[in-house]
């Protein structure tokens, strides 16, 4: 008899992401699911959140009544003040990233390859537009915008992807080779989805954890590359 399959909702994925936060880490959270993780830092741990637009040490996402348009993160969410916070220029914010001071970057993704290549800034491929970015934008279909993703993916000490396991059309997002434009090659080390936690290793993708009710075969069915199964495979722990 099978347990009922239970896909994690976004908040729960974010809770699982937050388990990766070690005390003292400098963490940058990308837009979407990653930013939700700011609210789930474990008791007794202190983590410093970095935002590209020049802030370090914000508290969490601000409630409507606290929202201040001079206090927001790189996903345009209002954030709260916390003691120890600091503000600085955009260039300094990226010196921190490029200089390797961000311990953990959690990013959303459109695709992740089995080598850890990340595609998270464009839904499409330059080749489809003969390399003409203007032609692409003119179509109005998911106009590409790099933002800070390439900088983070290229330079953070560790890059984790947090995303739904498949697209809205049930196409796999964990793929052999990215078909969308990539953000950086071989940068992702851990993938956290609504059905699995997968580690990117030199030997390939290793399934470490599954959502309640999901067998390795279930996860494999939604994943393009072949998954290795960790001998210590377990249910996703929160």
């Amino acid at each position: 008899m099978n347990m009922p399959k239970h896909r994690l909702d976004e908040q729960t994925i974010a809770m699982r992401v937050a388990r990766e936060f070690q005390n003292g880490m400098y963490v940058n959270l990308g837009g979407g699911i990653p930013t939700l993780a700011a609210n789930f830092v474990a008791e007794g741990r202190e983590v410093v959140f970095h935002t590209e637009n020049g802030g370090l040490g914000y508290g969490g996402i601000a409630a409507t009544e606290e929202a201040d348009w001079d206090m927001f993160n790189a996903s345009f969410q209002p954030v709260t003040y916390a003691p120890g916070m600091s503000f600085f220029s955009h260039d300094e914010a990226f010196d921190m990233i490029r200089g390797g001071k961000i311990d953990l970057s959690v990013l959303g993704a459109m695709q992740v390859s089995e080598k850890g290549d990340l595609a998270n800034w464009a839904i499409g491929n330059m080749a489809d537009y003969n390399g003409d970015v203007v032609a692409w934008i003119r179509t109005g279909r998911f106009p590409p915008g790099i933002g800070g993703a390439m900088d983070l993916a290229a330079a953070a000490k560790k890059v984790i992807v947090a995303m739904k396991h498949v697209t809205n059309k049930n196409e796999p997002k964990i793929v052999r080779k990215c078909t969308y434009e990539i953000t950086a090659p071989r940068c992702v080390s851990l993938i956290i989805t609504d059905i699995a936690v997968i580690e990117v290793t030199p030997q390939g993708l290793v399934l470490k954890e599954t959502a309640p009710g999901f067998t390795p075969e279930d996860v494999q069915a939604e994943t393009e590359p072949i998954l290795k199964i960790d001998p210590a495979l377990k249910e996703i722990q929160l």
Partner: protein
Amino acid sequence: MINKIVGSAREALADVFDGAVILCGGFGCVGGMPATLFRALAEVPARNLTLVGNAPVLGVRAQKAAARTMQVPDWFADGELLLKNGQVSKLIVSVPAMAIYRLEEPFPIVKALQAGQDIEVELVPQGTLAARMKAARAGIPAFYARPGTGTFLQKGREVRRFDGKDYLLEEAIRADFGIIWAHKGDRHGNLVYRGTSRSFNATVAGAARVTVAEVDEIVELGAIDPEAVATPGIWVDRIVRRAV
């Protein structure tokens, strides 16, 4: 006496010329966008402008959608006005439009291109964009950086290895004008910001030949703590009060 305070934004930008390259402060949404200066630029006769910034042409409609609980007032403005006027011939940006927001109508750059405007777009990673501005300010003509290696951006570019890793040659962006917002400023041009709205404003300050700042408040010389000056006055050429 040194007095960098100018009576109006239009006066401060009166010498913007055809073909000028303009660095834009602000992150692209909510606080910190130099709205008064964008509005003044839209009233200057100059055309064929190059706008350089993180996301200077999202438009107020998108900003309001993105800002959600943070209020974006109707007087707010960005480079959308210049696109509408057909004043822009090139964008050097990190985010020309946002794929994630569904608006009633297309983003301003999409509309402008669909209307047949001839606008070049150079996409630059956000941190590299900031560093290329900073390099110009620092008299550094070029530097090497890793973001973009192994992506479409590497195509046709100079790649160089340091310690076994590839880096791209990145050139400083040489600009004629920089427009920024700051919270407070004095007649020497010393500036302080507020919260995360500092961002690209502090990066743009001093990076162009002429830096024009719009400030919420003009204060007496000496009113800003010298230890807390975020942008020393030497980087700023003209100051105007924000016109709301």
